């Protein structure tokens, strides 16, 4: 019953003051400074190469933006990292030791990778509070879940996240009644409740108003350095806002086309040709 493997990392909640996460990992070996390595990943779907020998590395604490035209393989890459899709060839490592291609979705989530889907996915028939409670880092096997009780410390943590995602005061609302932008934030809040070391955000500002987009950029900037974050996004203004001087990766036809700061990428001829110029 590997599926029920205990989650026995040392508990560091509160060890870093007001923390909604941590960079230094438990269980994941990041001694070489990288949290994620993708090496020569190829994914074939009925003869179509969704990813073509994609190699990519993310350092601890980095906020990496990934851009690319439709069909470049951005979502497939996230599927490979989170265990939803198995690579046809190539390896995906979390830290130095965890082979993601051999782990189930929930095991990867336990290891410390949180994912926000392209369309906001929250539990619509649960309240905002209950959504955060379910996501909270805990022993998620059947029996402990049946007898779980919220401690005041855990309640405090939920309140802290509620304030961060600006949903304090809405905690008893049904998540299905939230606006699109609020659902996106709630989903980010749920990721933070898991205390992941790597956060994957698939188009976090799709469908958001300008004000919501600006607020999301602010939120991600607050998280910078506390988690390693990978953002896949189409919205150039938003990417410029959050990438700052960090590395931006451009995907095209399943592999890396260019990599560098936003300014470098934007002046790259090939990038302009396939993506920005259109």
């Amino acid at each position, binding site marked *: 019953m590997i*599926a*029920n493997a205990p*989650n026995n990392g040392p508990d560091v909640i509160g060890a870093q003051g007001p923390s909604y996460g941590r960079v230094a990992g438990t269980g994941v070996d990041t001694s070489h400074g990288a949290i994620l390595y993708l090496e020569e990943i190829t994914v074939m779907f009925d003869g179509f190469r969704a990813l073509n020998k994609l190699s990519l590395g993310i350092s601890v604490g980095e906020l990496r933006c990934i851009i690319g035209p439709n069909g470049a393989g951005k979502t497939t890459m996230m599927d490979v990292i*989170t265990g*939803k899709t198995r690579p046809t060839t190539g390896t995906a490592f979390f830290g130095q030791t965890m082979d993601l291609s051999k782990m*189930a*979705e*929930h095991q990867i*989530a*336990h290891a410390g990778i*949180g*994912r926000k*889907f392209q369309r906001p*996915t*929250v*539990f*619509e*028939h*649960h*309240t905002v*509070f*209950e959504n955060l*409670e*379910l*996501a909270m880092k805990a022993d*998620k*096997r*059947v029996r402990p*879940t*049946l*007898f*779980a009780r*919220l401690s005041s410390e855990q309640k405090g943590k939920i309140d802290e996240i509620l304030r961060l995602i600006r949903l304090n005061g809405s905690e008893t609302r049904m998540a299905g009644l939230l606006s699109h932008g609020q659902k996106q934030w709630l989903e980010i809040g*749920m990721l933070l409740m*898991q205390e992941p070391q790597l956060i994957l955000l698939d188009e976090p500002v799709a469908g958001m108003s300008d004000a919501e987009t600006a607020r999301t950029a602010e939120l991600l900037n607050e998280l910078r350095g506390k988690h390693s974050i990978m953002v896949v996004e189409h919205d150039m203004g938003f990417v410029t806002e959050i990438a700052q001087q960090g590395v931006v990766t451009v995907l095209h036809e399943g592999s890396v086309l260019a990599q560098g700061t936003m300014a470098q990428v934007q002046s790259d001829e090939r990038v302009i040709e396939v993506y920005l110029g259109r």
Partner: protein
Amino acid sequence: MTSPSLFSRQAWTGIVVCCVVLAALPLLNLFFADGHPLHVPSYMVSLIGKFMCYALAALALDMVWGYAGILSLGHGVFFALGAYAHGMYLMRAIGREGSYASDLPDFMVFLDWKTYPWFWAGTDSFWYCLALVVLVPGVLAFVFGYFAFRSRIKGVYFSIITQAMTYAFMLLFFRNNTGFGGNNGFTDFKRILGYSISAPGTKAVLYLVTLAALLGALLLCRAIVRSRLGRVLQGVRDSESRLMFIGYNPLWFKLFVWTLSAVLCGIAGALYVPQVGIINPSEMSPANSIEMVIWAAVGGRGTLLGPIVGAFSVNGLKSWFTGAFPDLWLFALGLIFILVTIYLPQGLAGLTARWRKEQA
């Protein structure tokens, strides 16, 4: 976020009143002679006793369908297996009083069998059969569920497989050589634990045990759905992939509720057989399982109390209808299902919620 009491004050009042009324029926039957204005006829007691078994089955179905979103169209098999497990004891308890005055049940004599087959070993013990009531449906559900859920079979595909399962079991039990009485099943029971099964006192005790089982199951289920595990189950229903990506393995949660539901359904069947006096393979016919789904849907899925009310009202209507217009019942049932789906998507429970909102 959660108050310490399982139900609201109103719901508690309703439950207590219903329990008192239900418990009073067999006592009024026993202590007031026929003809007395307070006398409750015996047929009424057995009818309500049967309805309580159905209500327990509907409650069990609501746990998997209403909360975890797993629609089973084969719960009849668990109900019947529980009934057969208990029936084995009841058959053994007949002793030599069968038509052939043999140690073996009549149907085995008829097949010219000389000894009990191996799987009947130990069934002369009431307690062993009681263990079988829990174990047989539980183990079947666990094994079936493990393979189905591990293969991520969901939605309508899962429902169809459950339907096929109950049908396959029905065919198996129809065979005389399976050793469960073929199409006649088990009947002509004489006694249970030494007491005559047709005595009014025995019937009253069986009735009260059924009431206690229904109430106990309701409280257990309510405690489960109000725990964090209950919220995880609703997560399985509403967004299973989200649940996986926040670190839950849906397999074990589904398997837990699926097996629990099968066991509760088996207990319902075990309580049904001594009160009704017969169990045969037609209980496993797909139509019976679908009827259970209708009870839950009419009452309101995902409310626990709703399916209980649904089982009582649909079966009450059925009793009246099959007496008044015997040929039209299935049409009426279909019509009820369609009307409920269109006008009361949350069932009778949704009606009370709407009414309460208007009051407020």
